[in-house]
C-alpha cells in the first residue's frame, strides 16, 4: 500500500484513526470469534481458551430430540416463508416499478410498514389476531407472520434491482412479439435474478433468525429454534447453545458469502 491517502496526510499521521477503527471492528466481530472455539470446549463452564477440546456440545445438540425438532420447525418455516414471500414480493416490486399507478406511494408505505412498526407490537397484534382465528402454535401462522416480515426486504431488494435495470429491454421484447409476462420471464427475470435471489436470502434469514414474533405465536410442536434458545437462555447459560450458535454463525457466513458474490455479479 502506498503512503498516500489522496490527501496531504500520511497514513502514519492517521494511525490513531486506524487503531480506533480496528478496535471497533474487533468489538463487532469478537462475539463470533470467541463463541466458535468455546463451543468445542469439554467443560460445562465456558472458558476461553477451552482447557480441553471435544464435540460434546454438538452431540448434545444433535442428540436432543427437542433441539432437533425445533431446528426442523425453523428450517421448514424459513423455507416456506422464502417460497411465499419471494414471488409475491417480486410481483409487488414489478407493479410498483411500472409506476403507472397513482397510489404507488401508498402501496410503498403499506408494504414497508413491517419494517417501521416496532416488532413487539407486531408480535402482540399477531398473537391477538391468531387467538381469534385459532392459528397460534401452527406452522401456517408462523409462515404467514414471517412472510409479512420478509415482504418489505424482498420488495426493497428487487426494486433496487429494477432501478439498475433498463426497462427498455422489456419494452423492446414486447415490441418484438413477447407478451408482458413472457417478456418478463425471458428478458427481465434473467437480468434481475441476482436481486431476486438476494431478496430470497433475506427472506430466509429473516424467518430463521426471528425471535420476538415466534416467542408469542409458536409453542408446543411448532416451537422454533430461536424460541427454544430464548427460553433456555433465560434460565441459564447452556453450553449447548454455543454449539447451536456456531452452526448459526456458519449459516450466516454462508448466506453472506452468497449475497456478496451475487452483489458483485450484479454490479457487473
Amino acid at each position, binding site marked *: 500500500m502506498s503512503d498516500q491517502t489522496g490527501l496531504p496526510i500520511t497514513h502514519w499521521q492517521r494511525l490513531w484513526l486506524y487503531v480506533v477503527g480496528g478496535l471497533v471492528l474487533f468489538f*463487532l466481530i*469478537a462475539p463470533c470469534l470467541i463463541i466458535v472455539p468455546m463451543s468445542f470446549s469439554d467443560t460445562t463452564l465456558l*472458558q476461553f481458551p477451552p482447557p480441553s477440546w471435544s464435540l460434546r456440545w454438538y452431540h448434545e445438540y444433535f442428540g436432543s430430540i427437542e433441539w432437533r425438532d425445533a431446528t426442523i420447525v425453523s428450517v421448514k418455516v424459513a423455507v416456506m416463508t422464502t417460497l411465499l414471500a419471494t414471488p409475491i414480493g417480486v410481483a409487488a416490486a414489478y407493479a410498483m416499478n411500472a409506476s*403507472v399507478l397513482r397510489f404507488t406511494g401508498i402501496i410503498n408505505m403499506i408494504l414497508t410498514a413491517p419494517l417501521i412498526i416496532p416488532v413487539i407490537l407486531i408480535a402482540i*397484534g399477531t398473537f*391477538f389476531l391468531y387467538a381469534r382465528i385459532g392459528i397460534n402454535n401452527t406452522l401456517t401462522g408462523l409462515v404467514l407472520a414471517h412472510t409479512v416480515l420478509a415482504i418489505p426486504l424482498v420488495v426493497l431488494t428487487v426494486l433496487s434491482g429494477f432501478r439498475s435495470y433498463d426497462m427498455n429491454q422489456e419494452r423492446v421484447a414486447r415490441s418484438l412479439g413477447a407478451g408482458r409476462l413472457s417478456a418478463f420471464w425471458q428478458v427481465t427475470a434473467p437480468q434481475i435474478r441476482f436481486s431476486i435471489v438476494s431478496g430470497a436470502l433475506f427472506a430466509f434469514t429473516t424467518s430463521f433468525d426471528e425471535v420476538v414474533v415466534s416467542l408469542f405465536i409458536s409453542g408446543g410442536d411448532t416451537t422454533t429454534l430461536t424460541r427454544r434458545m*430464548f427460553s433456555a*437462555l433465560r434460565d441459564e447459560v447452556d453450553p449447548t447453545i*454455543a454449539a447451536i450458535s456456531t452452526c448459526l454463525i456458519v449459516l450466516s*457466513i454462508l448466506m453472506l458469502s452468497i449475497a456478496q458474490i451475487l452483489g458483485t455479479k450484479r454490479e457487473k
Partner: protein
Amino acid sequence: MTAVVTDPGKRVDDDSGELNVAVLKRNARNEVWGLLGLCSPSLFLVGLIIILPVGWLFWLSLYDENGMLSFVNYERFVEQSSYVKTFVTTFEVSFGVTAICILLGYPLAYMLSQIPRRAASICMILVILPFWTSVLVRTYAWLVILQRKGLVNDWLIDLGIINQPLALVNNFTGVLIGMTHIMLPFLVLPLYASMKSISADYQRAGMNLGAGPVATFWQIFFPLSLPGLAAGVVITFVLCLGFFVTPALMGGGKVIMWAMRMQQTTSLYANWGAGSALGVLLLAVTFGLLGFFNWLLRGQIKAAWGGK
C-alpha cells in the same frame, strides 16, 4: 421510392369528436387493475397480519376493563410510577446506546471512507457479518463473555486490574454493551454511505486554502457527513425504543424497557388494554421521531440547494 406527400390537415374520412376514447380508457383501467392485482397478495397479507391487528389494538386501548370507552389506559402512564420508570429506563438506554454508537461508529465509518476501496470492502464484511447473524447468538455470546466468571472478568483479574469480578451482565451495563453491538451496524451503514459520497476534492480545496487537517475535518467534512449521521442516529434510536431480546436476556429482570413491559402486560397479566396503549404510544413516538427527522433532513437538503 415514392414519397406521397399528404397534407396533415386533410382527412380521409370525416368523423369528428374524440376517437377510441372508451376502448383506451378501458385498456388503461385494465392495466391498473392488473398491476394492482400483482400487489394484492402482499398488500392483503400485510393488511391482514399487521395493519388490522395493530388497528384492533389501538381500538382496545381506548376501553377500560369494563368495556367502557375511556382514557384510563393512557392516564396510567402518568399516574403509575412503574410506567414512568419504564419510560425513563427506555430513554436512558436508547440515548446511551445511541451515544456510544456515535462515538464508536463515527471513527469507524470515517476510517472506512478514507482507506482504499479494497481494504474498505474487506472491513465492511466485518460490519455486515454481525448484521446477518442472529440477535440471539450475539446476545448469548455477550452473556458468555461478560458473565461473572467470563472472559473479560478473567482477563482483568489475571492482569491485576481488579480483584473482584465486575458485574457486567444482568444490569444496565450489560444491556448497554449488548445493544450497542446489535445497533452499531445500523448507524455505520448509512453514515458510511453518506461519507463515501463526500468528494475528497472538498477536503483538498480546504487544505489548499490554508486550513489544517483538523480545521478541514471540522469545517468541511463533518458538516457534510451530518445528514448521514442523522439518518443513522434516528434508525438506531427508534430501534432501541422498541427493542426486546437483548434487554430481556441481559438485563437480569432489573432493566425493564418498553417492549418488555408490553410483553409482561399482555402475556403475564393479560391486560390487553394497557398493553395496547403502550404499543400505540410506542408507535406514535416512533412515527413522530421518523417524521421529525425526515422533515429536518429535507430542510437541510433544501438549504444546501438554496445556498448554491
